[in-house]
């Protein structure tokens, strides 16, 4: 089974095959042998070893939490929380693979959590600088300012002050 898995700033090409009672996992050509046991719906006990060598003995206690998009997970491993996006082979376009998706194109500012729009700090047509505040959302008793990631110009403002929004709702677009 072949996957593409985005993690950090890159995408890894991953294949998983059965090998006796164990699994062989290749990541961008490097292969490890994994003895896997499912210990909960979203929890795995893995013993891992480099391929061709000794038995898998490095214990990795891993658990996953599904994110909103199918195939997106937070992986909890070794005391860390690492977001990954899993797609079947070919699931990511060229762009993502090149690691270029981050820096270009319009910025869609979405609500990171359900809340109330306290203030809209810009209007369509405004020029904005990187890290300039765009909109203030109140949730969980704190006001949170959403900022521009890069310089740009405000195209659409989809919300008004006082409005309640769901997580993921589009608030405004900067191009």
């Amino acid at each position, binding site marked *: 089974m072949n996957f593409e898995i985005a993690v950090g700033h890159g995408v890894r090409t991953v294949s998983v095959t059965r090998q006796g009672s164990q699994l062989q996992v290749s990541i961008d050509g490097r292969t490890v042998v994994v003895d896997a046991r499912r210990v909960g719906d*979203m929890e795995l006990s893995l013993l891992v070893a480099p391929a061709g060598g000794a038995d898998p003995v490095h214990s990795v206690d891993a658990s996953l939490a599904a994110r909103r998009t199918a195939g997106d997970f*937070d992986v909890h491993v*070794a005391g860390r929380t*690492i977001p990954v996006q*899993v797609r079947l082979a070919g699931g990511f376009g060229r762009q993502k693979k090149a690691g270029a998706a981050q820096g270009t194109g319009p910025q869609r500012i979405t609500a990171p959590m359900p809340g109330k729009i306290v203030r809209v700090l810009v209007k369509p047509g405004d020029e904005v600088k990187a890290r300039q505040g765009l909109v203030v959302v109140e949730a969980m008793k704190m006001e*949170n300012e959403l900022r521009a990631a890069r310089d740009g110009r405000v195209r659409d403002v989809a919300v008004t002050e006082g409005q309640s929004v769901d997580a993921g709702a589009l608030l405004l677009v900067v191009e």
Partner: protein
Amino acid sequence: MKKILIANRGEIAVRVIRACRDMGIATVAIYSECDRAALHVRLADEAWPVGPSAPRESYLRIDAIIEAAKKSGADAVHPGYGFLAENEDFAAACRDAGLVFIGPSPEAITLMGSKTAARQAAIKAGVPVVPGTEEPLSEDTSDADVLTVAERIGYPLMLKAVAGGGGKGMRMVSTPADLPAALRAARSEALSAFGDGAVYLERRILAPRHIEVQLLGDHHGTVLPFVERECSIQRRHQKVVEESPSLAVSPELRRRMTSAAAAVAKTVGYTNAGTIEFLLDRDGSFYFLEMNTRLQVEHPITEMVTGVDLVQWQIRIARGEPLTLAPESLLTPKAHAIECRIYAEDPETGFMPSPGRIQGLRVPHGPGVRDDSGAYEGGEVPIFYDPMISKLVTWGETRGHAIARMKRALAEYQVRGIRTTIPFFQWLLDDEDFKAARFDTTFIDRKWGAPGSRLPQAIDSAHEDLAVIAAAVHMFTRSTATVVSEPVSIWKQAGRAEALR
């Protein structure tokens, strides 16, 4: 005292329920709409609805809470912290309804709840205060008037809500130009959190440490101070890590600070639990900052180094018992305790709140670990309230031992489905200055923003590989059925997963 209503929610309601149960006292929870299945409701003996999810319509509704207390036959009310804990009207309403309010008198709350009146009480007790406005600036004070007052105090200065607490309604102002915006924001936060938009100004002590002294006062004239807590690790003026004792406080300074704290409390005839907050300047001088007339979030670290159950003592004091604790033992910390406040906030995205359902939860255990939590697997973290879901506390034979245990406990802790501040604490606990206790209240703002300082472990490619392996194995072997524990079944699932491609 046979039945106590807990006028709060979340971890502190659970904490109070446990103390009551330890004392054989029945408990009454209250809940808003979204909290029907919250842990404090599940663990209490009774649970009464008090209104819709917005705090103003439920947990801040004095009338609804008093009515629930009366109907349930409770004879006392514990306010926890936050919400109505420092609301003198609530304390008075309890008294008027014949309910024992487990906290100080309404008069003491009124006096010390006003930051400006509290400063005057400290001055009267002979305790130094930070220079600032002695009178509150009401909501209606014009920007121009506030600017005039600010000019007298000098910049940088702190703008604070008179009714403030928990870092809310507080802003640092560096130049006159920043004042109007800061004033607007602070008033708005204060109004929403406390229903009172009045503010005051204070000179900003540069790079102070925040040191506080826990007190208990009984109804027989005894006030006992406890070994100090160090609370300098703050973000947005909100404490995130506390420890006891402070490495910056010598036994001699401890004696002076705890005596000063007790003097302030005695001056106002204070009873029950309270905390005097000080700023400790680099030169060793300290200033009265404010008094919190309630239990503090960080009370467990004091409990860990003194062995005293502060909530039990709140209840015992409220029912008239004299303080029989040995004063010297309260000032002699047993080794070291540290607390990390686990918030449903994502440190990777500027601490954005991360409400939602907790899909999975693994809580750390073992020697020296205590977790005071309001969360459970399958439970919701609602958007309406403070996003703190638990307090992880560790104790160790030394500060280093306590920190080592905290690192271990944080590595065991898994909160799945929402993001939390756990990675932030992992970063902090590895910081050389933190490990050496070289910090002040500006620590997080200076350090967390610095280039390359953020979550170094998250960009470690070895761990990314492990995450990729786990995700791939999960997809390969996943099952919508129940737990699979035999390897043979995993391979069956794997076969099926392949067949389904």
